[in-house]
């Protein structure tokens, strides 16, 4: 495994399965009286959020606290970033404070990769969503949720299994979706087939080179899907008219009860959240037992614990040679 988690494409099948299996074990913790492990005691994790987030930030924070790490929350609002500080200076500041890992969400695609490749920080960089690029922990928790539902008995003896031969349909605003990008990499690594369904205007340039199929007709794809993932239309990133009206989008690409009925018996409906009811998903579908939105949030904590443990728990960096110990960053910064 690499030292950083910047892109889902960095994960080999073995890495991904290790994370999923570790998360499967850690998921047991939520049923316990004491939901805490001493594993990351004395390690400092900084949550560096330049963009608003409730789900991801809370999820990371819960995961860090359950592993007994010291958590520092740093949001752009109310910090020196709002006074014009650059990413580099923020990173150097965090390094001087001795951060062992930085969880970063940034509105610019590539910001986590910049941090990971620089020598500003010595710790691990975990991408919690950058612009329209990637959101690897979301893809991992989606794969985790699919594996639990689609591989019978996955919580017990079906560890080390991927999602081979499963068909996953991702519907909606692929163009602006970092979730779709991370998912297509990870799901392909795990052996699943991904089909995107979206208006042509909401598909990125170069998508023909992605390991996926493309369709413009939701009805024809649904009957052969094992999981359908609905994406939110990201109005805040839209600078042009990508479709005529919301009503038309909703009619053609939204998931309602009638369309859900076309899915095979075992198929699940997923959504990375936040949902816009009435737009890409109707309330009927969102509230149905086949919809795994709430479960995905719970699984997110387990996945993030697994990632933090595997990147930070050991003596050396996950990709480092065994004889170069993790340096205590405060000393090296001087």
């Amino acid at each position, binding site marked *: 495994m690499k030292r950083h988690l910047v892109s889902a494409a960095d994960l080999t099948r073995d890495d991904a399965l*290790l994370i999923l*299996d*570790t998360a499967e*074990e*850690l998921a*047991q913790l939520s049923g*316990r*009286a*004491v939901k*805490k*492990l*001493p*594993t990351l005691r004395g390690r400092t994790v900084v949550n560096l959020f330049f963009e608003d987030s409730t789900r991801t930030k809370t999820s990371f924070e819960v995961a860090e606290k359950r592993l007994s790490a010291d958590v520092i929350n740093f949001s752009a609002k109310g910090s020196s970033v709002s006074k014009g500080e650059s990413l580099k200076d923020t990173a150097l500041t965090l390094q001087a404070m001795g951060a062992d890992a930085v969880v970063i969400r940034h509105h610019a695609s590539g910001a986590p990769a910049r941090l990971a490749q620089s020598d500003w920080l010595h710790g691990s960089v975990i991408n919690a969503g950058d612009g329209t690029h990637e959101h690897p922990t979301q893809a991992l928790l989606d794969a985790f949720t699919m594996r639990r539902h689609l591989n019978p008995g996955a919580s017990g003896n079906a560890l080390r299994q991927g999602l081979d031969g499963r068909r996953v349909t991702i519907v909606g605003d692929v163009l602006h979706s970092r979730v779709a990008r991370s998912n297509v990499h990870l799901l392909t690594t795990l052996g699943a087939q991904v089909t995107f369904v979206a208006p042509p205007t909401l598909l990125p340039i170069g998508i023909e080179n992605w390991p996926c199929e493309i369709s413009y007709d939701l009805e024809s794809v649904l009957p052969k899907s094992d999981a359908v993932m609905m994406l939110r239309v990201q109005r805040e990133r839209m600078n042009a008219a990508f479709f005529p009206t919301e009503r038309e989008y909703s009619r053609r690409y939204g998931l309602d009860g009638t369309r859900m009925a076309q899915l095979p018996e075992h198929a699940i409906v997923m959504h990375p959240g936040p949902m816009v009811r009435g737009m890409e998903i109707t309330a009927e579908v969102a509230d149905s037992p086949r919809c795994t939105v709430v479960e995905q949030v719970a699984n997110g904590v387990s996945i993030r614990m697994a990632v933090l*443990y*595997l*990147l*930070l*728990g*050991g*003596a*050396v960096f*996950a990709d480092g040679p*065994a004889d170069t110990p993790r340096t205590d960053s405060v000393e090296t910064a001087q």
Partner: protein
Amino acid sequence: MTTHQDPSPRAPHQVLDGTDIARVVTRIAHEIVERAKGAEDVVLLGIHTRGVHLARRLHGRLAQITGRDIPLGTLDITMYRDDLRLKPARALEHTEIPAGGIDGKLVILVDDVLFSGRTIRAALDALSDIGRPRAVQLAVLVDRGHRELPIRADYVGKNLPTSLREAVQVRLADTDGVDAVLVGDRDYTARSSQALAPQPSEPHLPE
């Protein structure tokens, strides 16, 4: 392999064979029934990896003796180890606590070799996060001495005085194809496991 420095490391020799191990498990099962007065509230927890297999065997014996199904579980102590910072992060094993939980029960931890005591310390920490047992006892197949913590076993299969130069290897049919306990020089084990054994069972070295 090619150079033989003196004193050359001794080859591992067998101290317990399959029948010995079976006898030891039976004896410990009887001791548990005797000391726990019928083993009414006993919960067996095997510590990964070989403690799990031993706990399963002990569970079978106890079922024969008492005619009841004693709750059986497994415990992975990786997240509680005190040497996590000294080695790369490793994969987790499956922890399974019996449905009845461990609150108010007599928990018997089962492991293959008792050495520094650090594994048991970690297991005790893990238990305190899972529940509050009435009491915790420890059953081991081999006690090889050299404790680094004030921990002792309640049920011991065999006391095996060893030197720190030696390594104790427990092999169980479930993972290693054969039941045996071997003692040999650690140098030899390290060297032979590189050269010969494709999948050596991990010798119990100081942690």
